[in-house]
C-alpha cells in the first residue's frame, strides 16, 4: 500500500497550518511591539502630524462620498422593501441604525483599508526594497517608532472621527433621498432619527472605527515591513495587506457587534 497517498495531503495540511500559525504569531508580536513603542519615547511629532493628514484628512472625500451614496441607497431599499408589508414609515429609523451601527463603520473601515492600508504598505515596502529602512537603523532611528507608531496612532484616532462623519453624511444622504423623492417631511425625518438613536449605537460605531483604524494601519505597516524584494515584493505586500485588513475588519466587526448588541 502506498502510504504517500495518505501522508502527503496531511503533510501539506500540516505545513500550511504551521505556516498560518507562525504568521499569526509574527503579526501578534508586531502588534504588541507597536503598542509598546506607542507608550515609550522618543515620539516623532512631525511624522504623526503627517500621518494624521494622510490617514484622516485626505480620506474625508472618499469616506464622505461612500457614506452619502450608501445612505441614499439604503433609504430607497428600505422604502421599497418596507412597502411589501406597509412599513415605509420606518425609513428614518432603519437608515439611522443601519448607518451608525453597521454600514458607517464597516464601509469607512473598508475604504480606509483600500486607500490607507494599500498606500502605507506600498510606501514602507518600497522603503524596505530601496534600503531606506536599513538607512533609518544606521541613523539611530527605530523604524517602528518612526514609521509604524505615527501611522497606527493616526489610524486609531482619526478613523473613529471619520466614522462619525460618515454616519452623519450617510444619514444626510438618506434624508435627502427620502425628502426629495419619497415624500418624507424633512423635520419629522430628522426628529425620528435623533429620537431613535441611543448612545450605545454611537459609542459602538466610534469604537468600531478605532479598532478598524488600528487594524487597517497595522496591516499596512506589517506587510510593508515583511515585503520581499523588487517590484513583485512590493505588489505582493500591498495586495496581502489590503486582503488581510479587509478580512480582519469584517471579522472584528462581527465580534464587536456581538459584544455590544448580543442579548
Amino acid at each position, binding site marked *: 500500500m502506498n502510504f504517500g497517498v495518505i501522508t502527503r495531503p496531511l503533510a501539506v495540511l500540516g505545513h500550511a497550518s504551521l505556516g498560518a500559525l507562525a504568521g499569526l504569531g509574527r503579526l501578534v508580536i508586531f502588534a504588541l511591539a507597536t503598542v509598546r513603542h506607542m507608550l515609550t519615547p*522618543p515620539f516623532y511629532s512631525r511624522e504623526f502630524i503627517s500621518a494624521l493628514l494622510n490617514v484622516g484628512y485626505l480620506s474625508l472625500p472618499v469616506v464622505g462620498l461612500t457614506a452619502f451614496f450608501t445612505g441614499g441607497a439604503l433609504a430607497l431599499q428600505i422604502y421599497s422593501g418596507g412597502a411589501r408589508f406597509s412599513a415605509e414609515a420606518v425609513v428614518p429609523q432603519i437608515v439611522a441604525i443601519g448607518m451608525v451601527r453597521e454600514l458607517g463603520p464597516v464601509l469607512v473601515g473598508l475604504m480606509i483599508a483600500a486607500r490607507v492600508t494599500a498606500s502605507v504598505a506600498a510606501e514602507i515596502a518600497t522603503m524596505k526594497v*530601496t534600503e*531606506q529602512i*536599513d*538607512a533609518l537603523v*544606521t*541613523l*539611530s532611528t527605530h523604524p517602528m517608532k518612526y514609521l509604524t507608531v505615527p501611522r497606527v496612532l493616526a489610524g486609531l484616532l482619526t478613523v473613529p472621527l471619520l466614522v462619525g462623519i460618515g454616519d452623519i453624511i450617510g444619514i444626510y444622504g438618506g434624508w435627502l433621498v427620502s425628502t426629495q423623492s419619497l415624500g418624507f417631511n424633512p423635520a419629522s425625518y430628522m426628529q425620528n432619527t435623533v429620537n431613535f438613536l441611543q448612545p450605545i449605537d454611537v459609542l459602538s460605531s466610534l469604537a468600531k472605527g478605532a479598532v478598524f483604524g488600528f487594524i487597517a494601519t497595522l496591516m499596512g505597516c506589517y506587510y510593508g515591513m515583511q515585503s520581499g524584494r523588487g517590484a513583485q515584493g512590493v505588489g505582493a505586500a500591498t495586495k496581502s495587506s489590503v486582503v488581510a485588513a479587509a478580512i480582519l475588519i469584517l471579522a472584528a466587526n462581527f465580534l464587536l457587534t456581538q459584544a455590544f448588541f448580543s442579548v
Partner: protein
Amino acid sequence: MIELSNVHKSFGSKQILRGVDLNVARGESLVIIGGSGTGKSVTLKCVLGLIMPDQGVIKVDGEDVTQTGDRDAFLAKFGMLFQGGALFDSIPVWQNVAFRLLRGALKRPRAEAREIAIEKLRRVGLSPDVADQLPAELSGGMQKRVGLARAIAADPEIIFFDEPTTGLDPIMAGVINDLIREIVVEMGATAMTITHDMTSVRAISDTVAMLHGGKIRWSGPVAEMDSGEDPYLQQFITGSADGPIATLR
C-alpha cells in the same frame, strides 16, 4: 578597530559567509572586493548589527556588536553610504543630510541642523539650492553625493561605503572616489568599502580584502595587490573570464 573572527551567516539553506576573519585598524581604509553574491553587503550589515551572524564574533572598539548596551550610541559611531543612496524620498535633501541632527541624542536646533547640512552638501560639491529639492529631482550622481553628505553629517568615526560608484558614469565615479578619499583622510575616519570597481579600489583603499566562497581569500596592502599570486585575486583584478572563479556564460 573592527574585528571579525570566524563569522558565519546563512539564509535558509544558502550559506553566504563561511568563517570570515578580518581586522581593520583605526584610520585605515579597507576595501572588500569580490563577485556579486559573495556576501560583501552581508558582511557590512553584520558589522552594523542589521543582520545577526549565526556564528563568530564581531567587535568594534573591543565591543561585541551583538551585545551593545546602548544601540543608539553604538550606531552614532557609523555613517553609511548605501548603494542606491537610500535617501528618504518624502523629505527634502537638507533634512536627509541632517536626519541624525534633527532627532535623537545628537538633536540640534532646526536652523543649526540646516546650516550643517548645507555645509556638508557644499563639501561634496553641491550648491545650497539643492537643499530644498526632493531626492527624486536629483540625478544619480547627485543622489550619491547627498548620500555621502548624510553619511558624514554627524562626523562619524567609521564610514561604510556600499558600491559607491555603481550606476555612475566613469567621470562621476572618479569624482565620488576622490571625494571619498579626501573626506576619509581629512576626517581621520576608519572606512570600509565594498565594491567590484577596480578603479575605486585603487583610488580609495589602503588595504584590500577579497571575499570568495564565504571566506577572505586574500588580504594585503593595495600596493601588493597586483603582485599577489592568488589566482582568484588575479582573475578578479584583471577581469578575465578564464580562471578558477566559475562564471555562467
